């Protein structure tokens, strides 16, 4: 399976009379974008804004972040099951608007939505202080239930991102990256002496606003299965997630999965990248047992020498992580885990809720409990009053002078467990 990603470098997004891309600037007609959002009758109103790197702007509570893409050649369209019909993606050519993102905010859905600061201390921790962000501030109609509101906001972002992606359909990319995934037989023939390495991608699926979708299917209703790595780049995995902001995977990070990127980069050099296994993190013990059994079974069947396992969220998913680790290691397949830590504000507590001797190779995305002081910024897009109630904040987090004292947890993607963030530890 071969996918070419055509990167179009975006340096600015501006509102204008006509939606178009000129050079490295994306121009958007505000009314057109609003019309797309308001097609959904559960949405009462939407405000648009643009937040640029270095501006004194804070966005909160952040729900999802999406990177606009468009399928130029090959089957299907981006975000299959949502803005395009279900059809296998991952082959052909896809254009990417690199350097911009679509961010959704609005009245709070859950209590685990994040903060993106475009400048200052907070900007150091979130990857989305480096993107030019089109922000959709969405207000639901009266009486809409939380889960319906989450769905409306999620769909609005996917539809707007798809529409913006369409503007890039006929643009010649600045840079082309080629990703070629060998079949199992090809891989064995081409690289008989390289270690066979897989990736177990854990998807948050606890329900109650903690969900991830694969080709439109709710991951908590799935069994562990395989996905082609290039499908992920075409938006086959979508976040519907209000887990703690620091370590949920926004759709943007799925689209840019850094573990998949690196495994492709090493493929044929230091290792043979065999494939990606996706598994869930459900709330019933039987589901956890079954899904991790299945991960181990697939790793063995594929004849892997090693796997990288990335987690999403924390707490009881630590058990899914450790079950995957233990059972896969028991099949003779080495594991490296990517997680983050909740080691207390002083870093002295046990980092994960579960542990095992088999988990002897772990990469951390950082300690989410570390307290940060974020200065007052000139402009807030969204609703600042929720800072006291989102996970990582407390009553009084929002200081009288407009600054924020809270745990790192509140910052979107600060301790990302696919390694997309900026923190690590040795």
């Amino acid at each position, binding site marked *: 399976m071969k996918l070419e990603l055509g990167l179009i470098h975006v340096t600015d997004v501006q509102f204008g009379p006509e939606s178009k891309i000129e050079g490295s600037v994306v121009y958007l007609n505000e009314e057109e974008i609003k019309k797309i959002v308001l097609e959904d009758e559960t949405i009462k109103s939407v405000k648009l804004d643009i937040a640029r790197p270095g501006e004194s702007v804070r966005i909160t509570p952040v729900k999802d972040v999406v990177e606009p893409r468009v399928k130029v050649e090959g089957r299907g369209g981006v975000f299959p099951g949502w803005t395009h019909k279900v059809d296998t993606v991952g082959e052909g050519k896809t254009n990417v608007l690199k350097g911009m993102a679509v961010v959704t905010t609005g009245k709070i859905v859950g209590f685990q939505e994040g903060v993106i600061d475009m400048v200052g201390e907070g900007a150091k921790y979130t990857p989305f202080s480096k993107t030019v962000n089109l922000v959709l501030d969405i207000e639901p109609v009266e009486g809409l239930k939380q889960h319906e509101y989450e769905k409306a906001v999620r769909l609005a972002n996917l539809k707007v991102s798809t529409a913006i992606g369409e503007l890039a359909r006929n643009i010649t990319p600045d840079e082309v990256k080629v990703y070629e995934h060998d079949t199992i037989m090809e891989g064995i023939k081409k690289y008989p002496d390289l270690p066979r390495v897989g990736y177990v991608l854990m998807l948050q699926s606890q329900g109650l606003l903690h969900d991830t979708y694969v080709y439109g299917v709710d991951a908590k209703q799935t069994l562990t299965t395989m996905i082609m790595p290039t499908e992920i780049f075409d938006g086959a995995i979508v976040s519907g997630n209000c887990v703690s902001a620091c370590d949920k995977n926004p759709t943007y990070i799925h689209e840019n999965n850094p573990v998949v990127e690196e495994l492709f980069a090493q493929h044929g050099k230091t290792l043979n990248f065999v494939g990606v296994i996706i598994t869930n993190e459900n*709330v019933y013990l039987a589901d*956890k047992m079954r899904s991790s059994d299945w991960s181990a079974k697939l790793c063995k069947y594929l004849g892997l020498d090693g796997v990288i396992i990335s987690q999403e969220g924390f707490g009881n998913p630590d*058990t899914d992580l450790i*079950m995957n680790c233990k059972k896969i290691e028991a099949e003779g397949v080495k594991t490296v885990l990517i997680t983050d830590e909740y080691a207390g504000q002083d870093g002295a507590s046990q980092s994960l809720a*579960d542990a095992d001797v088999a988990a002897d190779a772990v990469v951390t995305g950082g300690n989410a409990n570390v307290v940060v002081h974020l200065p007052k910024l000139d402009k807030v897009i969204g609703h600042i009053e929720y800072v006291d109630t989102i996970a990582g904040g407390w009553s009084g987090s929002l200081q009288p002078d407009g600054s924020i004292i809270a745990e790192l947890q509140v910052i979107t993607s600060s301790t990302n467990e696919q390694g997309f963030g900026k923190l690590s530890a040795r």
Partner: protein
Amino acid sequence: MCTVTPISLTVGANRIVPTIAIPHPLGNPALDHDEEKKLRRRLVEKALKALQTPIDDQTIFE
């Protein structure tokens, strides 16, 4: 009483009674009121029995 019994074992609990699910350990919203009441009573009785059972090691009362 806990849904994720592997964590109970990791943190060193002695008597462990498995429960329903993480968001609703001692109940089940899929059941009607009477059935759920029975389920809750069964779980509490099991826990009381566990407390009275002598053990030598960490024990899960299935």
